[in-house]
């Protein structure tokens, strides 16, 4: 059974569909990147999964059960939303203690986790003075209190410096290697590409892709872009040759399964006039922008 299963989840706020028929699954031992631009519905989805908001329709379950029906939630799921909210007047250690207390978890585990996330030295300061990165680390510690098999992390890399992001990456890797299912959301693709086994990309509340990263690259990336006055004729020639051709805007095409040299030979053979020929970038960043319908910065 999937560790996390989102099934036709829909959340409506008045006239706005924040999440619109979203479905995806997370299997044990996998890190799934949950990607989308800000406002795409990621946090709404995670809040529905964690029983904080009620879905308009559809379901979100953990091991087949709704979060609010779990017998021992802390030992089943660990989650951080919005960087882990803190009372500014309470120390990080006491924040963890109060959550641990409610679940019957002792002080030893709290101290252990504070060491694990590198907060042992600042744990007794009032949390109002914590940096965003420290809050994120404390949030992770809170999520791990009950040593859960499923982790749900909303933008955990926000506020982390490059060393922190590397630390987080290694940390998540080791958690998944222990067989945990990890769902980690982000609006910055680069944060998850080196961590996630697969990605779910959403835009405007709808899923636009769920696939392992390598498949996504193979299916979406690559190809050769050709532009010029005769591209339509070239397109016909290529199609006759069995190539996959996609028009991109005025006077340009992308050939999916031919490299530059192959296209060039065809051009020379038939005396076609072109003005541009180049390999299409295969960066995930651009696939992400293409999928989510956002402007590329290029």
């Amino acid at each position, binding site marked *: 059974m999937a560790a996390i299963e989102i099934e036709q989840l829909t959340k409506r706020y008045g006239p706005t569909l924040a999440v619109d028929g979203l479905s995806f699954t997370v299997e044990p031992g996998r890190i799934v990147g949950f990607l989308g631009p800000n406002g795409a519905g990621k946090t709404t989805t995670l*809040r529905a999964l*964690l029983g904080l908001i009620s879905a308009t329709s559809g379901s979100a379950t953990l091991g087949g059960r709704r979060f609010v029906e779990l017998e021992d939630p802390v030992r089943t799921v660990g989650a951080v939303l919005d960087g882990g909210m803190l009372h500014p007047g309470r120390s990080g250690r006491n924040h963890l*203690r109060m959550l641990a207390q409610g679940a019957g978890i002792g002080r030893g585990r709290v101290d252990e986790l504070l060491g694990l996330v590198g907060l042992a030295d600042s744990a007794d300061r009032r949390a109002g003075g914590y940096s965003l990165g420290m809050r994120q680390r404390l949030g992770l510690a809170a999520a791990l209190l009950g040593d859960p098999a499923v982790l749900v992390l909303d933008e955990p890399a926000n506020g982390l410096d490059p060393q922190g992001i590397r630390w987080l990456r290694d940390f998540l890797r080791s958690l998944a290697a222990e067989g945990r299912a990890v769902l980690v959301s982000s609006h910055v693709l680069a944060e998850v590409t080196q961590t996630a086994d697969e990605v779910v990309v959403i835009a405007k509340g709808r899923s636009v892709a769920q696939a392992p990263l390598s498949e996504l690259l193979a299916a979406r990336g690559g190809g050769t872009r050709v532009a010029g006055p005769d591209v339509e004729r070239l397109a016909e020639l290529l199609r006759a040759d069995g190539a996959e051709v996609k028009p991109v805007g005025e006077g340009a095409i992308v050939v999916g399964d031919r490299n530059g040299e192959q296209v060039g030979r065809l051009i020379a053979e038939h005396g076609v006039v072109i003005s541009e020929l180049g390999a299409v970038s295969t960066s995930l960043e651009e696939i992400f922008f293409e999928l989510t319908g956002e402007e590329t910065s290029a």
Partner: protein
Amino acid sequence: MSRLIGAELLKLRTTRTGVALIASVVGIVVLVSALATFTGDFDSDEFNTVDLLGISGFAQPFALVLGILAVTSEFRHGTITPTLIAAPGRGRLLAAKLAANGLAGVLLGVVAVAVCSAIVLLGLSARGIETGLASGDVARVVAGQVVAGGLWAALGVGVGALIGNQVGAIVGALGWLFLVENLLRIVPGLGDQVEKYGINGASNGLGNLESQNTGEVLGQVGGGLLLAAYAVAFLLAGLLVLRSRDVTT
């Protein structure tokens, strides 16, 4: 359930809010009861030891605010999210807050009435003035004030759950108690009812002695039950709102 209550008690102990509320209550009660005891004109017919002991009632709005803060500060600082992720049962959360903060309210009442009666009884005896009270009377006033502290905190938990917004809940509750109810008391026909059955009236009944009561307010038991009924009503309404609420902070 006892774990959740423990967690709520820990929340109370780990910020400065609880200490600040207790210190405020002690400060005000010491100041007002000392001024009244040592400067009051006790030769007049207005003299009434029960009224002096009633100064410990200054703890009540603080107990109310304590209860309100227990719920609303979770929304204000967003700690409601980690709280509910650790323990998603909202009814149980509210029950744990009721138990922990009701206890804290009782503690506020105990502190206030202890400080107040010590100053009043010692002060009067130092001035050689008869209190006119049997020890049983003092015990009844003390009990009433202690119970009132718990009930006001319970009422605050209900108001906090119902309104959610911290500023709105505090301004709304204190505005109703100190402004609206007092204004309603001057409305002919309605005024007597408000004085007797309003929230302040119920609390006044609880803190008064039957022997001193001339019928403007209910007796101690009646007043206590009415105040408890107000608390239960707000707690039930707050529970309904809390359970259906989308937590997005």
